[in-house]
């Protein structure tokens, strides 16, 4: 019994030390490289709320597949009716700008979209591609500034300062859950030091053993608008065909 207690204590201590000694780079590396399966399928309800006008809603079918270090995603529009059937293919390239194509069924044409920076808006919402998990670690310097609970989960508070000071958001303060390294909140600051955007991840569950965010919100605190992404019908590792992510397959 005594041995067991000692063993358990040793395990707890070593576990605690292991996590206590995590460097900020290790925390960020874990947060940026979360296990997300080889492929992923989900239905997304996107809601864009602007201070003026009625909210816009889009129902999308989302597919993602890893291609080595890169990944590719395909979004098919289910609604609104006038864009139903439109498909948006993105090749997320780790070390260069993304490649994007849009298939317009009404014109029966595939159009390439100019290579955009990763900070550009994700399909007209308040999210950017970076917010969707495409920001490279090399773009910032990091510092742990403390820890705090967010939605009853203990989190590291990490400050990321952009190396390129001409970036839209020069500072991010991220709250990263200690148990699964998911970024549950990120406050984005502009060059004047003002808090301009807030990212929040909610409803986090394990699906097929993978920690999965079911609800995302990005608030524009300046404009007073926000966008939400609600995920459902999530599946991992279903063996999506590579062909699905080819440009020719769009049409």
């Amino acid at each position, binding site marked *: 019994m005594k041995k067991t207690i000692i063993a358990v204590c040793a395990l707890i201590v070593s576990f605690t030390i292991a996590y206590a000694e995590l460097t900020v780079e290790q925390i960020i590396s874990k947060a940026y490289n979360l296990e997300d399966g080889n492929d992923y399928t989900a239905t997304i309800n996107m809601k864009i709320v602007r201070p003026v006008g009625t909210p816009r809603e889009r129902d999308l079918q989302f597919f993602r597949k890893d291609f080595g270090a890169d990944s590719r995603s395909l979004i098919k529009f289910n609604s609104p009716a006038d864009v139903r059937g439109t498909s948006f293919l993105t090749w997320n390239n780790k070390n260069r700008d993304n490649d994007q194509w849009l298939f317009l069924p009404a014109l029966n044409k595939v159009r390439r979209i100019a290579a955009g*920076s990763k900070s550009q808006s994700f399909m007209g919402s308040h999210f950017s591609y970076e917010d969707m998990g495409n920001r490279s670690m090399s773009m910032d310097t990091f510092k742990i500034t403390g820890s705090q609970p967010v939605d009853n989960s203990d989190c590291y508070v990490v400050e990321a300062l952009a190396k390129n000071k001409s970036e839209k958001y020069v500072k991010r303060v991220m709250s990263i859950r200690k148990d699964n390294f998911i970024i549950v909140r990120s406050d984005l600051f502009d060059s004047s030091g003002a808090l301009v955007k807030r990212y929040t991840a909610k409803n986090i569950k394990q699906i097929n053993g993978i920690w999965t965010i079911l609800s995302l919100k990005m608030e524009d605190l300046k404009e007073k608008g926000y966008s939400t992404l609600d995920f459902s019908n999530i599946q991992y590792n279903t063996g999506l065909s590579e062909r699905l992510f080819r440009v020719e397959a769009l049409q």
Partner: protein
Amino acid sequence: MNSLLNRIVDLITEKKNYFLIGLIVLTIGLMAFLPKLKIDNALEVWFLKDDPTLINYNEFKKVYGNDEIIAVWVKPDTDIYSKEFVQKIYTISKNLKQSPLIKRVISITSAPYMDSVNNELKVEDLVNTSPDDTFKPEVLKERLLFTPLWKKLMINKDGSAIVVLVEPIVSEDMDAKRPEILDFVKKTFAGTNYKLAGMGVVYDELNKLSMRDSSLFTSLSFLLLLISIFILFRNRHVLFASVITMIICTLLFVGIFCMFGQKFNMVSAVLPSLIVILCLEDVIYIFATYFDTKPGPNRLKESLKHILVPCFFTSLTTALGFLSFVASPMAILKSFGIFASIGVMLEYFVAVIVSAFILVIIDKKTGGQASMPAGLETKNEGLVYTLVRWISGFTQKNYKIVVAASMVILAIAIFFTSKLKVDTYTIEFLLDSNQVKKDSLFIEKDYGFYLPIEVRLKPRGANGVKDPVFLNKLADLQVQIEKHPNMSNATSLVDIVKQLNRILTDRNESSYKNPDSKDKIAQELLLYEMDENNDLANFVTSDYSELRLTIRAPMVSSQNIKKMMGTIDTAIKNVYKDEVEVIFGGYIPLYVKLIDYIAESQISSFAIAFFLIFVSTGLLFRSFYYFMITVIPNIVPIMMTLGIMGAAGIYLDIATVTIAALTIGLSVDNTIQFLYTYKKKIAEGIPMNDAITDTLITTGKPMFISNAILVIGFCVMIFASVKSVIFFGLLIGLTMLFAIGCDLFLLPSLLLLFKREK
């Protein structure tokens, strides 16, 4: 009443030091607020915060941004596509875009250009990188001419100059930011041959001129008034009292004004001078009454007892005249009314305290035997005496003719008053020699119209904006509107959709049209939306529930703009019937709404001033007879001025709207002074004809002097740089001249015509 008056007089004379010290301490305290002094002539300040027109304006800014566009006309030495010139514009545009003060820059280098290359939709600036040796002018020309929207907005009529459209950020305090924004724009364009135009540019100029005029007039009118007082009185005590009163009054008033966070504008800019003029009027009457009172030990108290009540009532009636503006629907007139009333009552107390202080000293020094100042002597000789005697004789002989002639004049004046036009012509506030006005008119001639009339079109039904039928009708509407001689360059989402369709199909001219299905439009727009350089937010709301139609018009008066809005509204209704909701947005509806508010303010303020002033006069004399006698000689001069405005085509505008209510408060002062003395003489048992003559002789001179001061004080404004201020000064000066004429001729004639036996 008499015992109260006695107590007040005792208090003022016995505690004079405390009153004066208290006044000085208060003045010094309030001077702490002087650094807060600000000028604001923006149109928004005319409206109350909850005014629907202002709410609509702010909503427009929230949705589409600032419509206060700065149009910068730039002419190169060579060709507009030359590398050197394009390089300059590229740098200028880049610098402008980097500024936190600027939201958007449309220039031959920075406007978004869309094209389809190798099956790829490309949206980028017209000139993407700084022009170097590889720069080809013909490529830029081809790109510009390929985009009809930019071609019509950025090049002048003969293609020799360009226009850069600069959209400032939306700021809560645009008036405070505007000078900084314009200075930055001017600095950025330095070294080029440029001219600026736009409503903001005109406002900035008006603000600068108001600030300059305000300080110039205050000093100039002070100087002129002091010179006039010295010439008319030839007495150093009066001059000294005047100087001290003027200084304390000005500092005290401006201090209070600033303490309440008020800003000076083209209406309130006249307040310091106006209050000083009224203050001096009281000083003159107080001193004139003192010297007119029989010398002796009680001279000072007797004179103060005689003058404090009429002076209080003259100040009260003037204050009531101003207070009538509280009923105006315009924020600026409301605050003008409140602070002018406060100022007028304030000047009364300052004038009484300072004059009493100096008179106590004079009285003690001379034992109440001070001789009449040379200028005030009512000797039985001299020009004024002869004139007054003549007026007295003339009116007593011809009072019926005087009254009849006045009634004829009144009828003619009423006829021409009916011709008075209510309008506001902002750019016409500036003199023809003004450089901003010259540049604005030049740009209008060389480039075309740039004043944006913004229309928000809300089709009924979800996503109606993407309906091809709706967009085709809009395209037709734009063509139709552009045919109007006073409207041009109608732009909307249609220009984007047509161009998008052209480049996504075959790039041919024939494809520059709206797609034929809602799905095609929606999908093409979705594609465009995906590009971060798209400028859809400037044309349509994010939910596609409404779009913005911009029509360029000349800088004309608000009445003419109202007519144009009517034409546009009819054209829209003809095209769409009731399929769309039409809301005029941006700054123009504010400009137009002013017409209604000016007319409403004129009627309400004049009616209220009329009622309050004459009721208070009736209360002073406690007689309906005197109430009626007071009304007529004060209505005639105002109607004469309004008639002259109607005949001469001077607009009743945001500057001249205050004249009627203001002058009625001023002109009634002399009537009160006259009737107060006349009634006293009648009460002393002096026969009516002699009482009129005596009143004219004793009050005639101070009436002349106080009126001359008013006329001089207001006529100084002819040196103003803002036309409306010149008219304002001249018209009030003129009314005061008419008013003295009526008080000297018509008032005694009315007393004689409606004589009472008692």
